[in-house]
C-alpha cells in the first residue's frame, strides 16, 4: 500500500515528463488516475488500522547514521493521508475543468502529481530525514506550480520568493533535526518516542528549547507563520487549483502536521511551546486584520488561510495538538472549497479577481454561489458546520489557561465572520459592478462536482470526524465547565461580525472605509513585504556588494596583484644586476669579496 500511495503520483509525474506530455488527455487521465489510486490506498490504510512504522527502502547507512524511506500508519498519518488524497483528487478533477484550454496542460498535471507525491511523503514519513527530504520537495513543487505561467514576470518573481523563504525554513528545520539527533541519537519517530519515554529528564532544557524552535522554524516557513508569512499572498500568482492545493489541503498544513508529529519533542520545552503559541496567535490576528482591506478575492482567501493556520499553530502551542489536527482537517474541506469556488468565479468572468468588479453573481453562478456560502459559513463558525466544532475545540482549550490568547482568538473569529461576509456580499450579491459579470455563466461539471462534494464535507466534517474511530487520537478534550460559555461567545462574535458586515457592505459600489493610518496599514499588509525587502533582500545585497568590493580590491587587487607587482619589481631589479656585462660582474665580484672579507676580519678573527 505504501508503495502505491507514494508511487502512483511519482510514476505519473515521471511518465508525463518523459513522453506522455505530447498527449494532453493521456497526461490528465494518468495524473487523475494516479491520485485516485493513492486515495483508494489511503482508504484501505485508513480502515485497516495499522499503527507501526515500516521501513521500505534503505537510503544509506554509514556508521551510526541510518536513513530509511519508510511509512508510518498511526492515527495522525491515516487521517491526514485520507484527507490529503481526497482533497487532492477533487482538486485534480477541478483542475482539468479550469485548465482545459491551457497549452501546457500536461506540464501542469505533471507538476500537480509531483506535488501530491511530495506532500504524501511528508505525511507518511517515519523519520525526520525522510520528512526533511519531502519537506524540501514540497518547496520545489510549489515553486514549479506557482511559477507555472513562467512567462509572466510576476509569477516568476513570486515563485522565486516563495522558494527562498521556504529555504529559510529548511535551514532552521535541518538544524532542529541535527539537534534531535544529538540529544537522542536517533531520527526515527518510534525510537525517539521510546527514548524520550524512558528517559524524559536526561537533557538540558536550553538545548531542548533551541532544538524545538529549530523544528518550529520549518513550520514557520511552510505554514507561513509570522514573520515568514509574506510568501503566501504571492503564491496566488499560480493557477487557482494550485492555490487551493497549496493553501488548503496540503502544503501549508504540512507545517502544522509536522508540529503534531514531533509534538512529543516540543512538549518537553515549555518555553518553546509559549513561543509557538504567541507566533500562532499573532499570525491569526494579523492576517485577519489584513484580510479586512484586501480586494483581490484570492488574496482575501489567502489571508484567511493564514489566519486559520495561526489558530492551529496556537493550538499546538497550547499543547492541544489534537484540536489543531481537528481544525486542520475541517479547514482543508472548506478552504479548498472556497479556493475552488473563487477559481470557478474567476474562470466564469474571464480572470477578473477584484471583488469590486463582481457583484450579482449569485444568479449567474448558482452552484458556485451556494457552495461558496456553505464554505463561508463553515469557516466563520455557523453552529453545526465543520469550522464551528473545531474552532470551539481550540477556543475551549485556551479558555482556562491562556486567557489572553483566548481573547485574541475570539476577536479574530469575529473578524473572520466580518471579512468573509464582506467578500460574499460584495462579490455575489447586489448589482453587477462591471461589464465582465454580464457574460458570466456557471462552470462545467468538472468544476461544480468537486464543489458539491466538498460542500457536503464542509457541512458534516465537524461531527463526523468524531465518529471515525479515532477517539484515542482525536480525543478532543472535553472541558465540561465553560464549554457552554465558549459556545455562546463564539456564536455571539459570529453573529456580530456577519450582521455588521452585511449592513455595512450591502449594495455598496466601492470600499466605504478609508480610515487614515489604519486602512493603509492593513492594505499594505503591515508593510511586511517592505520590511522583508529592507532587511533580508537589502541586507544580503549590501553585504554582497561590500564583500565583492573587498575581493576585487583587497584580495585580488592588493594581495594577488601586489604579489605579482613585487615579484615583477624584484625581477626587474635582478635583471639590472644580471645584464650580461662582464665588467659589471667583476665589479660585483670584487665588492662581494671585499664585503665578505670585511666581515671575516671584523668578527671572525
Amino acid at each position, binding site marked *: 500500500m505504501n508503495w502505491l500511495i507514494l508511487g502512483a503520483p511519482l510514476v505519473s509525474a515521471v511518465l508525463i515528463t518523459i513522453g506522455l506530455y505530447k498527449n494532453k488527455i493521456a497526461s490528465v487521465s494518468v495524473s487523475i488516475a494516479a491520485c485516485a489510486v493513492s486515495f483508494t490506498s489511503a482508504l484501505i490504510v485508513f480502515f485497516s488500522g495499522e499503527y507501526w512504522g515500516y521501513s521500505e527502502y*534503505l*537510503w*544509506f*547507512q*554509514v*556508521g*551510526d*547514521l541510518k*536513513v530509511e524511506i519508510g511509512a508510518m500508519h498511526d492515527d495522525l498519518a491515516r487521517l491526514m493521508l485520507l484527507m490529503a488524497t481526497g482533497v487532492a483528487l477533487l482538486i485534480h478533477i477541478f483542475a482539468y475543468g479550469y485548465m482545459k484550454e491551457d497549452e501546457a496542460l500536461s506540464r501542469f498535471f505533471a507538476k500537480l502529481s509531483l506535488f501530491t507525491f511530495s506532500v504524501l511523503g511528508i505525511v507518511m514519513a517515519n523519520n525526520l*530525514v525522510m520528512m*526533511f*527530504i*519531502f519537506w*524540501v*520537495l514540497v518547496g*520545489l513543487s510549489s*515553486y514549479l506550480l506557482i*511559477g507555472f505561467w*513562467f*512567462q509572466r*514576470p510576476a*509569477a*516568476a*518573481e513570486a*515563485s*522565486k520568493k516563495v*522558494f*527562498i523563504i521556504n*529555504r*529559510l525554513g*529548511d*535551514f532552521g528545520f*535541518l*538544524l532542529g533535526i*541535527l539537534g534531535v*539527533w*544529538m540529544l537522542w541519537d536517533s531520527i526515527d519517530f518510534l525510537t525517539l518516542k521510546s527514548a524520550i519515554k524512558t528517559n524524559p529528564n536526561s537533557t538540558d532544557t536550553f538545548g531542548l528549547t533551541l532544538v524545538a524552535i529549530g523544528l518550529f522554524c520549518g513550520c514557520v516557513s511552510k505554514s507561513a507563520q509570522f514573520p515568514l508569512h509574506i510568501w503566501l499572498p504571492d503564491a496566488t500568482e499560480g493557477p487557482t487549483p494550485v492555490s487551493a492545493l497549496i493553501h488548503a489541503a496540503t502544503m501549508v498544513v504540512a507545517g502544522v502536521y509536522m508540529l503534531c508529529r514531533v509534538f512529543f519533542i516540543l512538549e518537553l520545552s515549555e518555553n518553546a511551546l509559549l513561543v509557538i503559541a504567541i507566533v500562532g496567535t499573532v499570525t491569526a490576528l494579523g492576517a485577519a486584520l489584513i484580510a479586512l482591506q484586501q480586494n483581490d478575492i484570492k488574496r482575501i482567501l489567502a489571508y484567511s488561510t493564514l489566519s486559520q493556520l495561526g489558530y492551529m499553530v496556537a493550538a499546538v502551542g497550547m499543547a492541544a495538538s489534537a484540536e489543531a489536527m481537528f481544525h486542520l482537517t475541517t479547514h482543508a474541506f472548506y478552504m479548498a472549497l472556497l479556493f475552488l469556488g473563487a477559481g470557478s468565479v474567476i474562470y466564469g468572468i474571464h480572470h477578473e479577481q477584484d471583488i469590486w468588479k463582481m457583484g450579482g453573481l449569485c444568479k449567474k453562478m448558482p452552484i458556485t454561489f451556494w457552495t461558496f456560502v456553505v464554505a463561508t459559513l463553515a469557516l466563520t463558525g455557523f453552529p453545526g458546520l465543520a469550522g464551528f466544532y473545531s474552532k470551539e475545540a481550540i477556543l475551549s482549550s485556551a479558555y482556562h489557561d491562556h486567557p489572553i490568547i483566548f481573547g485574541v482568538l475570539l476577536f479574530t473569529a469575529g473578524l473572520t465572520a466580518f471579512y468573509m461576509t464582506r467578500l460574499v456580499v460584495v462579490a455575489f450579491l447586489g448589482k453587477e459592478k462591471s461589464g465582465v459579470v454580464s457574460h458570466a455563466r456557471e462552470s462545467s461539471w468538472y468544476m461544480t462536482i468537486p464543489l458539491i462534494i466538498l460542500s457536503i464535507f464542509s457541512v458534516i466534517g465537524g461531527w463526523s470526524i468524531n465518529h471515525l474511530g479515532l477517539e484515542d487520537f482525536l480525543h478532543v478534550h472535553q472541558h465540561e465547565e465553560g464549554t457552554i460559555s465558549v459556545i455562546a461567545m463564539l456564536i455571539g462574535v459570529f453573529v456580530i461580525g456577519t450582521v455588521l458586515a452585511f449592513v455595512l457592505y450591502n449594495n455598496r459600489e466601492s470600499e466605504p472605509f478609508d480610515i487614515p493610518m489604519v486602512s493603509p496599514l492593513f492594505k499594505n499588509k503591515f508593510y511586511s513585504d517592505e520590511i522583508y525587502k529592507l532587511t533580508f533582500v537589502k541586507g*544580503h*545585497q549590501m*553585504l*554582497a*556588494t561590500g*564583500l*565583492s568590493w573587498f*575581493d576585487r580590491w583587497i*584580495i*585580488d587587487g592588493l*594581495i*594577488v596583484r601586489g604579489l605579482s607587482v613585487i615579484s615583477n619589481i624584484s625581477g626587474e631589479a635582478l635583471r639590472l644586476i644580471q645584464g650580461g656585462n662582464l665588467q659589471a660582474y667583476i665589479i660585483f665580484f670584487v665588492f662581494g669579496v671585499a664585503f665578505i672579507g670585511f666581515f671575516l676580519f671584523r668578527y671572525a678573527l
Partner: protein
Amino acid sequence: MNFMLQFLLITPVLACLAIIIGAPAKRTALFSSLIGLISTVALAWGFDAEAEAFQFITKIPVAEHQDLFTLHFHLGIDGMSLAMLLLTSVVTLSAVCISPEDIKRGKLFYICLLLVSLGAVGAFVSLDLFFLYAFHAVALIPTFLLIGIWGTHDRKFAATQMTIYLMAGSLVLLAGLLAFYFYLPEPTFDLVEIQEMLQGDSFTAEQQSVIYPLLLIGFGILIALFPFHSWAPRGYATSPAACVMLHAGVLKQFGFYGLIRLAVPYLPDGIAQYLPLLLVLLLCNLIYIGFLTLTQKDLNLMLAFSSVMHMGYLFLGLAGMNAVSINGMVLLMVAHGLSTALLFGLAAEIRERAGTLHFAELGGMASKAPWLAFLFIAGGMASMGLPGLGNFAGEVMIYFGAWKGAEHHPILYIVIILAAWGLVISAIYMLRAIKTVCYGSLSDSLRETEDFKDFAQAFPFLLLLAGLLLTGLCPWILSNWMKPVLVGLGLE
C-alpha cells in the same frame, strides 16, 4: 581482470597516437572515452565491495636501487577511487560529446582533453605517491593549453594566472609529499607499504604539524580554498566548456582525494591542530564566496563562484573527521563534479545560442527551448541541494557527520549553523539565475533559439543527470563501497 586499469590508461594514449597519425579527432576521442566509460562500469561490476584491500592490483618495478630509492608503477583501486573513476569517465564522455567537431586546431584540442582525462584517471588509480603526483601534473599542463588557446576573452591572462597558482600549489604539495616521505621510518612512496608501516604508530605530533599544513595549502590551492580562490572564477569563466567540465568537475576533486588518502588516516593530530584555521577558511569559502556569487552578473562567472563556494561543504566534511562526514564528502565530490559539469556544459550551449551569458541579456528560454531549460533547472536544483539528486545526499551526510564531530570540537556547532546559511545563499543566486535565464519574457538574444534537435545532442547532459539521480536516489551504493575504505582510514 587485473589488466583493466592499464587498459584504462592505455586507451587514451592510443587514441592520442591515432589522432596524431590522422584519425578524425572528435570521433576518436569519443570512441576512446566511450570505451573508458564502459570499462569503468565493467570495473564496478567486477568490484568486490566487501574486500578491505585494494583491488585490480598491478605492480611493475620502475627503479630499484638498494637502500636508496625504489619505485613501482603500482596501480589498484578501492571504493573511493572507483567512485572517482566513474565520475571521471562520465564527465570525460560528456565533455567530449559537447565539444564542437570543427573547433580550430582540433587535433591538439582533443589530445589535450584526452590527456586531462588520462591524468585524472592515472591519479585516481595510482597507489604510489610519485605517480599520483606525476599524473596530476599530466592533467594540469593540457588544462593551461586548453584555456590559453581555446579560451574566450582575456584568455592569456586567465591561463597565466591559473598556471602560476596551480604550479605554486603543486610545489607546496610536493614539499608536503617530500616531508611526508622523509618522515617515514623507511621512506617510500608506496601507499600500501605506508599503510602497513604506519599501522599502530603514526607520525609524531610535531611531524604532523609540519606535513599537514603543506598538504592543506598545496591541495587547497588546487581546490581554490579561500584565500587562494582568485584563479578559479576567471579561469573557469574563460575556459572552453569541455575543459572547465573536466577541471571543475574532476580535477578539483583530486585535492580532496589526496587529503582523504593522506591526511585523514596519517595526520589526525595535524588536522585537529589546524582545525580552527580550516574552519575559518571553509566559512570564508561558503559565506564570503557565497556573497560574491550573489553579485555576479554573468552566468559563467556565477557558476564558477558557486563551484568555489561549494568547496566549503567538502572541507566541512574533512573537519568532521568521522565515517559519516567522510562518506558524505566522497559522495558530494562525485555529485558536485557531475552537477558542475552539467551546469557549465549547459552554459556553453546557452552561449552558443544567445551569444552572451550576461543575465541582463537573457530571459524566457523555457518557452523556446524547454528541454534545455529543464536540464538547466535540474542542474541548478542539484547544486542547490534538492533531494533526489546527489548533492543533497552528500550534504546531509556532511551535516550529520560534522555535527557528530562537533562533540570533540564544540566550535564546530557554530560553524555548521553558519555553514547551513549556505542553503539560503545558494537558493538565492541559483533561483535568480533560473528566473532570469529561463523564465520571464523572451529576450532578443534568444529569439532564434532552438531546443536540442535530437537525443544525441541532449545525451551528454542526460548522462550527467542520470549520474546525479543515481547518486541521489541510491547513495547506499557508494556507502557500501566506502565501508571498507572507512575501516582502512581508521574511522570505523
